[in-house]
């Protein structure tokens, strides 16, 4: 054994960047089988697969608020233009729709299985290059569009073979508009939303208590930030807030039972990427400690490219999905 180790050690070391990796045949076979099953779900639901260039002009991503998924890698081309490696597929598809489907009758349905590129924090096992499988539904507003995409999401996860997943569903506009309705100053709102996005409930409490709101308002904000569970969390609220949850209730009514039972309604869920405007979702599995996919409505994004259409989509992180699947297998044994 030691001779073998020594032989291994003496072989040449040619490093690859941290956060990237080689995929060898055993893993590739499993990934391919999984993405093939997901692709056939997308295709069967009418979401034609597209591919866009990995390199885009930087200005394409400067048109929109992409906080949470900013481009991390820039190069100059031979004309001195700045190109970036795409940090997600949603913005390129928005560009594609605005330029190649200028007059096409919505709704438009697209899917992709493609790599996106993100910056990583060192030593964290994060990926610079991540394989995403997702769909975009363009021109289908509100709850009907959201419900359709949630159906595709669950069908894809079922096809992948994941058993125990749940989908967290929230509304990115809920908490901000509530703060606005309570006349909270813009800078205080940003502080509270930042603490909420970071999951710092101690910070959320501190900032809300510092506001000097009427006790009922404070209590509501504190409670809402933590409210997550079954459809009952959408009931029992009054007035404007009850109305604000109408969208989520309608999504719940519209999805089939096998999708509805997967949903965790999460009133404290905030946007993970800046362009989300309404419904947002996150995919969880008990076998893995980090979310394996996310999505939401981005009703303003297409407008930035000159084709104002409401839209909704999701992206699954294929590598994380694979980890969750093997985790479920291990727990099941």
């Amino acid at each position: 054994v030691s001779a073998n180790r020594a032989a291994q050690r003496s072989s040449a070391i040619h490093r690859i960047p941290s956060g990237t990796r080689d995929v060898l045949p055993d893993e590739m076979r499993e990934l391919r089988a999984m993405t093939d099953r997901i692709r056939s779900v997308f295709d069967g639901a009418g979401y034609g697969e597209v591919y866009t260039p990995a390199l885009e002009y930087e200005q394409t991503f400067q048109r929109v608020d992409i906080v949470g998924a900013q481009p991390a890698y820039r190069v100059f081309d031979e004309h001195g233009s700045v190109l970036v490696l795409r940090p997600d597929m949603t913005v390129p598809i928005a560009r594609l729709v605005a330029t190649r489907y200028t007059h096409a009758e919505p709704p438009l349905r697209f899917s992709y299985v493609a790599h996106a590129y993100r910056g990583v924090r060192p030593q964290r096992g994060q990926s610079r290059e991540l394989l995403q499988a997702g769909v975009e539904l363009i021109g289908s507003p509100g709850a009907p569009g959201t419900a359709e995409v949630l159906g595709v999401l669950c069908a894809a996860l079922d096809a992948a073979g994941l058993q125990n997943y749940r989908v967290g569903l929230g509304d990115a506009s809920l908490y901000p508009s509530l703060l606005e309705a309570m006349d909270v100053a813009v800078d205080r709102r940003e502080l509270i939303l930042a603490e909420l996005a970071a999951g710092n409930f101690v910070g959320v409490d501190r900032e809300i208590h510092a506001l000097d709101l009427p006790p009922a308002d404070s209590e509501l904000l504190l409670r809402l930030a933590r409210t997550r569970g079954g459809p009952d969390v959408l009931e029992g609220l009054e007035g404007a807030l009850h109305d604000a949850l109408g969208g989520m209730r309608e999504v719940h009514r519209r999805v089939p039972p096998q999708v509805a039972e997967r949903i965790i309604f999460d009133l404290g869920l905030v946007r993970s990427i800046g362009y989300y405007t309404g419904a947002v979702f996150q995919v969880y599995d008990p076998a893995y400690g980090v979310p394996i996919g996310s999505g939401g409505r981005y009703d303003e994004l297409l407008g930035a490219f000159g084709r104002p259409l409401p839209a909704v989509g999701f992206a699954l992180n294929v590598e994380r999905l694979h980890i969750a699947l093997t985790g479920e297998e291990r727990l099941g044994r």
Partner: protein
Amino acid sequence: MSELRIAVPRGALFTDTLALLDRLGLDTREVRDNDRKLLFEGSGIITMRPSDVPTYVEAGAADLGITGKDVLMEQSEREVYELVDLGYGRCRMVLATVAGEDRAAEALRRLGVVRIATKYPRIAARHFLETGRQAEIVEVKGSVELAPLTGLVEAIVDLTATGTTLRENGLVIREEIAVCTARLIANPVAHKLRAATIDRLLERIHAV
């Protein structure tokens, strides 16, 4: 309750943490009786260094964890939810120098940069960045008090409960950076998927 796995810090927060878990109805006798064992299946408790708690909780290897705010500040990029300020384990993160003339201030005035020894390089760097001063951070692993006494640095950033160790080494506190107490943290996925169990536990924490 035992369906949740909870990361418990050994060290300064250990006794108060076990007392809290006792009040919540967990059986901590086995943990108290055995200071080598790390994993206690019966109660769902795992024990570790405080600075490892966010690592286990972020990855989901523990659903919940208890650690100091100092650890969370130093590892601020960890994706964990901070649920409750438990109040105990109160310490201060301070900037301290040798008593007498403030050598850190002198270094800043005459050399433009101050050398700081610390076990908390990121908290120290952030503090000097936010206060608009240049600092060279020297990371040490133990006995930070030694560094300014030997001329390695002009000042230290360290955690202090009573100030006794600082005083005994002839150091004085010049600035307070933060007050740190024990925090209950959660894995974000567990916080969604085990919502009812976690919320019941939080109610009991607020009740005791």
